[in-house]
């Protein structure tokens, strides 16, 4: 069983870049030690749909990073568990499978990792503009604390 998978979900546009920017930030920080910690895997995905279920398979802990719109002010940190994501899935999108659908599908298949959270920042009412470097660093640092990545020797 592999240990921790950190997935930045997004696209190259506006606030939706957040997941990818945080992965870049984490990669930079772990490269400083010139010995990437093997128990961690960092990946960027572009609207993975149901493929997310297979991507998560075999990990003890999965952190999904994404920009979210939950009605709060821009930049508000958001942390959701798998249960909360499944419960709050309004399923309004006609564009096939979203993240919530994938997590519900993994749950139905009894294939969810032991620990799964989705963390990100609320985009507020503006999706066109990317988050600031400060926002990205702040979220990256919180994820390092959350996963124990900051305790890996050399960081």
């Amino acid at each position, binding site marked *: 069983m592999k240990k921790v998978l950190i997935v930045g979900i997004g696209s190259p546009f506006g606030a939706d870049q957040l997941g990818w920017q945080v992965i870049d930030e984490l990669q930079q920080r772990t490269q400083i030690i010139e010995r990437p910690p093997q128990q961690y895997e960092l990946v960027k995905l572009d609207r993975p749909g149901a*493929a997310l279920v*297979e991507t998560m398979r075999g990990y003890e802990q999965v952190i999904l990073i994404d920009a979210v719109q939950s009605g709060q002010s821009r930049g508000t940190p958001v942390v959701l568990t798998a249960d909360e994501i499944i419960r709050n899935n309004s399923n309004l999108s006609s*564009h096939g499978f979203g993240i919530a659908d994938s997590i519900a599908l993994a749950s*139905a*298949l009894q*294939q969810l990792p032991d620990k799964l959270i989705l963390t990100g920042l609320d985009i507020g009412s503006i999706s066109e503009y990317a988050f600031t470097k400060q926002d990205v660093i702040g979220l990256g640092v919180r994820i390092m604390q959350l996963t124990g990545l900051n305790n890996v020797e050399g960081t």
Partner: protein
Amino acid sequence: MNDKRDIRIQVPVLARVEGEGALELTARDGQIEQLRLRIFEPPRLFEKFLEGHNFSEVPDMVARICGICPVAYQMSAVQAIEQAFMTPISDWVRSMRRAMYCGEWIQSHALHIHLLAAPDFLGFNSAIQMAEVYPEAVQRGLQLQALGNKLISLFGGRSVHPVGVCVGGFHQAPSSEAVENLHRELEAALPQAEQLVYWTAGLALPDDEQDFVSVALRHDSEYPMYSGRLVSDTGLDIAIEEYEQHFRELQVPHSTALYALLHDEPYLVGPLSRLNLNRDYLPSEVQKLMESLPVSFPSRNMFHAIVARAIEIYTALLEACRLLADYEYQAQSAEFIEPKPGIGYGCTEAPRGILWHRYDLDEDGMVLKSRIVPPTSQNQARIEEDLHQSLTAYGLQHTDAELRLRAESVIRNYDPCISCATHFLKLKVDRE
């Protein structure tokens, strides 16, 4: 229930299809009065975006038309541009493009079978509900989808909007080690693909024989995917360059996607068409397996498309294994390109059917004009024709909920990619 009652069914947003569309149905005195597959997603205008761009930008631009079948757009585009430039393409490039295309068929078909279509035939509202009762089937589907994505990534760097394809070949050839590892995985998945064919053929599919025209590519030595002539089961046999002389696109008020007709009649493209017209070119293992199925081809039952998709997954896996078995790394993975002014045509078999491209290019290789005809817009008229025939055969005495479900199942059966189709709109502005 009275089959002469007034029926008015509106499905404002179709679920489990790619993109946004709606269905409107009215019936009176036991006759369907009006039936519209209404596509309201905004036009994408890609053909116009391409104008003024250099040929080298085209593969990455057209890949953005679709998140499910970007490889198909890249393949039709590079083929057309290479034809215009008269660029000779090596056997290695041709084979590796076909291998990459296999990945797209595997992932797209696996997604459609398990997450979009099968719930209709097993009585579930969603794949999530279905997964609780049929976890092994859904897991198999997700594993096959992931394998298809890996094959695309091998050549394209990533599976969604891949970036490895260029005019002349590939930006980079994958390493022998990467190919060897994936080849092992593909071989290991063959029994799964075989089981999937039996599983789809064992589903309780509606018995709905219809008359329709099948159109597909036909190659002189292989199951069509990357190239061939355009053929139909009504005698059409033309070069892809002759498409515009036989097929006509038209606009209707209720759709932002164009309709297409062959000699003024609707026609079908996609896996069932391909199989109906090309089963003699399936690998021998597949032909042998098909002899033991309760479903036979050519088939006039549109619902057999799900079995055709499973057969094509098995075929694509076998093809990919064959093409990658004796892989040799190529340091030079693309031909040298010398732009020439001219017109080029490309047509390949996307998972949903033929995808036809035409590019007019100038002496510097800049796009002057482009035309892209995706499979879903070609199937639109056939979907409406199928809905008429299928709902009439099913019986208008059924409840609104039953009619709605049957109508949605008919539409989903085509695996329509509405986002791909909506890329053109002519506006008529009346000014006083």
